[in-house]
């Protein structure tokens, strides 16, 4: 009987435990590996009779944290079978002369935890198909290209005394930072830190190795030429720019004065990861009298992203539909 009571108490204690690091509400928004998502709003395989029209709707939603501005969506068909006739758009979307769509979408906010979305619809017309077929399986595809940011924000412990020579006790323990996602398709997965003695006596250089992965379902494109990627002219791929890195009073800016040297930037792919190394410059070395301290680390990545989706559409022979 005693054992039973002890068991009950243990269960209650365990169930009362909460996961560590619940964090702020903002942190909850900065999770996930999706940015822009696309979805055809149709169950099953849509069918259209040859010579007739079919209307369908799309859902485009910004499920990430950052704001999407002036992104491009291109719809394409197998034009020997289906042709895009027109778009039917809610007010905020804009059709360009080449039938592509431009739009802005806000990411996840406290007020809208799923991210802003739009529901454009389009109409395609089916060509006549050859009389010997009952149907032809065709498809409609969409590409969306946009610029995005990944904002990484975690606490970093800078250990200015890695060999423990100072008497003062350390306020934190230096360790690598791991993270799974930041509310964007490109995620910083790990930040490794190393401390080296600087050339200047009694100072130290910190070096951060930042590991990045493309966790989303799309591909990385040049953020400056992102529209070309959706219009079949893109050649800039796998581009990630580290635009900002900051902790304490030390800062890196891609264009501008920096305390760090970060390379390679634009960041290159190495096997399945992207790695950039940021090393504090000599002139910005941390004086050794600075005690170990914990500080927020902010890293901002900038890149272009392209996602695709497609749906099968069956074009039926006129006779078969009867």
């Amino acid at each position, binding site marked *: 009987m005693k054992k039973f009571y002890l068991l009950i108490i243990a269960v209650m204690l365990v169930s009362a435990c909460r996961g560590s690091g619940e964090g702020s509400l903002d942190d909850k928004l900065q999770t996930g590996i999706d940015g822009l998502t696309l979805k055809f709003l149709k169950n099953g*395989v849509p069918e259209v009779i040859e010579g007739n029209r079919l209307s369908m709707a799309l859902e485009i939603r910004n499920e990430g944290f950052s704001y999407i501005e002036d992104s491009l969506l291109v719809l394409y068909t197998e034009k020997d079978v289906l042709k895009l006739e027109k778009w039917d758009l809610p007010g905020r979307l804009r059709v360009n002369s080449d039938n592509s769509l431009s739009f802005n979408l806000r990411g996840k906010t406290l007020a809208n935890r799923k991210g802003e979305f739009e529901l454009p619809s389009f109409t395609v017309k089916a060509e*006549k198909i050859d*009389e010997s077929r009952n149907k032809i399986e065709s498809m409609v595809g969409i590409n969306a290209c946009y610029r995005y940011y990944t904002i990484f924000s975690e606490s970093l412990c800078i250990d200015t005394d890695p060999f423990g020579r100072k008497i003062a006790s350390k306020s934190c323990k230096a360790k690598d930072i791991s993270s799974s996602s930041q509310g964007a398709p490109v995620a910083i997965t790990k930040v490794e830190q190393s401390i080296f003695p600087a050339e200047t006596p009694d100072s130290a250089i910190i070096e951060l190795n930042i590991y990045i992965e493309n966790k989303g379902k799309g*591909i990385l494109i040049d953020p400056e030429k992102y529209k070309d990627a959706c219009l079949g002219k893109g050649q800039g791929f796998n581009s990630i720019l580290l635009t900002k890195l900051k902790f304490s009073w030390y800062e890196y800016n891609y264009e501008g004065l920096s305390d760090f040297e970060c390379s390679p930037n634009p960041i290159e792919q190495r096997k399945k990861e992207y790695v950039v190394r940021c090393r504090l410059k000599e002139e910005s070395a941390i004086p050794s009298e600075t005690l170990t301290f914990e500080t927020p680390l902010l890293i901002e990545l900038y890149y272009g992203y392209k996602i*695709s989706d497609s749906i099968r559409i069956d074009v039926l022979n006129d006779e078969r539909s009867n």
Partner: protein
Amino acid sequence: MVFKWINNKLGAGKARFDSSAPVVWTKDKVDRTRSTIGSESAEADKFRSKGALTTMLILALLINYILEGFIPAFRFSGFELSFFIGTIVYGDWVGIYNLFHFNIFFLLVAFAVFNLRNGKPHILRVWLGLILIAYLLSSIPILNTYMGIRNFIELIMLIISAIYLSFSETTKEDFISTIVVMWAFYNIFFFGITSTIGGLTHFIFIILFFIIFCMGNHFAEDRTQIKWWLIILILFDFFLPQILKAAYPTIPVDSLPWLTFGMVIFGNVYKPYWFPRFLLIALVAFYFLQYAFAGNDTFAQIIGQRGADQENIAERMKFLNPKEWLNRITQWTNQSVYYASGQNYYAGRVDENAKKDLGVFIEGMDRNDKIFYDNERIIIDANLKAQNFVSEEDVGFESLTIQLDCWAQQNGKNFAHGKIYPKNKYEIDAFDTESIQCIFDPWQLQLGSYDIIIEATFNFQTQTYLKRYFVNTLLLDSLKSKKVIEKDSDILKLNKISDTMPSAKNSAGPVEIRVSDQVPSIIELSNEIDTKQIFGVQIANRWRGEIKRIKGFEFYLPDGIYLDEGYCTFAMGIDAISDSRFEGYIKYSLQEKNNIRLRNIKKEIVQRCSLAMKKGDIEKVLGPEDVTTRYIQLKTDYDYLMKESVGITVAEPPGVNMKIFSPDRGAIDSGSMPLCKITYDKKESFILWLLGAAGVGLKNTVVFELYAGDSLVEPMVQEQCTEARCEHFYEKTFPKGTKLRCKATVDTSRFDEPAEWQEPEAYVIVKNSAPVVKSVDYLRDANYGLTTREYVKGDIAICSASVEDRDNDEIIAEFSFEGFDVAPTTKECRGNCFVEIPTGSAQKATAMTCKVRVFDGEDYSKEVSTNANLVMLGASP
């Protein structure tokens, strides 16, 4: 000793028996204790085997459904068989021998057989044998190459086997089964099973299976059988998926959970308790339901590629048809042969969405009687079914014209020509079914077996579309250099295009258009250089029959894609498009329609062309998307000859019969003379009848009468009849349509023979005589009839025929030509007729053949031909 054993079993270290008090062990007590322990032991074994089996079943389920279901890297669908296929099909037997390491396998088995005589190994023999083999193999170069132990691992295997044989107790069967399992493991390992994580997982599972079931003492009784089952499991999981995949490429059979299937079967055979039985029922029910639901579109969306609407169920059900298996294996082997021999493989298939049953079909012939008498009219019934896929509203509508004919063949050669009733020519607009008959007159076929062939020649069309993907080469290079993709086909996956290897899709019908595998799915276009792409197309015969003539062949290419006209096997040229469906396309049509190679095609012909895409025109082909899908349409018009047949036997009718026929031609026509003959099938009474009561050697007299209509042809004739011969030949011919009646009078009054045997008679209608082409010649001048064997370019060649028809029917002559591009001509012909052929357009010297065949409304003549040479101006003959 027994008591000690019992003590140990009942608890070592703990005194279950008070050693201070002596225990009296009676026999009963020992037996009871032993049986309790035995049954406890048996129970323990049963529990152990169920536990092991359950564990392995659950593991298999976890691997197939959880691990492979959620982590794509773990997916394993058997060994890729292309290497094995190539080796086997190419007949590289030595390669196969070495590939499967048969040398070491045979050596070990031979070792076992030699040394395990009487169930006991002889240690000295084992070691001597090992040394001898190693010595021999090292010193004899030939053996070294083919029989030798080729590597260190095999030598180790041989040594380990020798040690095992020497020191363990084993039977021959168990040792051989162990060797086979080891050999299988060895081969699998060297085939590279561990190169993927999925393969490694399955390999570990097999090893685990071996450790649990085949090692240790627990399953000693069943071990040999389990080892053989392990071999089956290995075949099931490692080889069967890709074999089935090759046979059924459109059905994702390789993604089925074969490891689980194999384990469930093993479980039900080895230890059929509730769990494996439940799994068997559950799996069968699940996959059956999945297949059944595949007909539902909603479910088709869920199960992706396995979706099939009702029309496809029949196609998929062919899986259960052994004939279909044979066809698939043949196709698979053919494909392998092509690859092995370095030839191009042409692929194409009937579009699963095509309308079925298009074409002309002759059905129901197999429902006829198979035995006929020679004195009766032989009538073979059949159904003619035709469906045209081009409807009247469509541009280029052409009704189906079907010409029927029927023949009796013996040993593959035409013996007699039958008549088609009610008519031998049909014009079908959309769909029609007609009952037809093939009729042979009495005595037209002699006694024996025949194949009755009904032939249908009809005009038809096959339409094919081929989907291809076009990509800017700069884009591909950029994606590859940035490691976004590894190979070209990855760009399709990137753009969520699932149909990565689209094949030519044909309409239903007797002919299929296939496209060479040299035409890649993705065609790269460049802004800097023109792109040229070999485009090989095969027109293949799908049905039993032959393509009589290809009348037309068309390519419809999207704007921006051109045919390099000078590079086609058969010349093609740009043509105007009349069908609005092809707006934005360029049409190329076959130019040399009278090429002899486009006729009488039993298997296939190839049209090799080259596509050209100019650097300045790629904007016409490519769209804004990364991958532009375009369709190339192909169409061919042809005359097709299809045949259906049924075997019959023509037998002697029972009793006494009169025959009236032509001895040399069978059926009597206006050119043949009739023979009236009595036949009899029962010798006994016939002899009596013939001989009467006078005895052996005497003859009987039979009176023959022949009537043409109601008139007696000549006075009654008496013939002396024997069993061997009882007939009269009339040396007279009769016009076609004459009703001839032959009657004989036999005196059978003295015997109990049927009355009708006293006056046997037979009727026949004189048939039409086929017209005859007496001669065919090339002439210099039609008026003067001077024959010639040579023309010079620019001359008018005159092919003249002299014809005759006994029945004075209207004759149509068909002139056809070889060696020169001239269309066939038909014209009325009375006595003599000719055709003029201008030779001014000839490009080169050639031999011209003129063939003539005539038709009198009922029958065709034999074809007669003649040759002449055409020379170029200034060239020496």
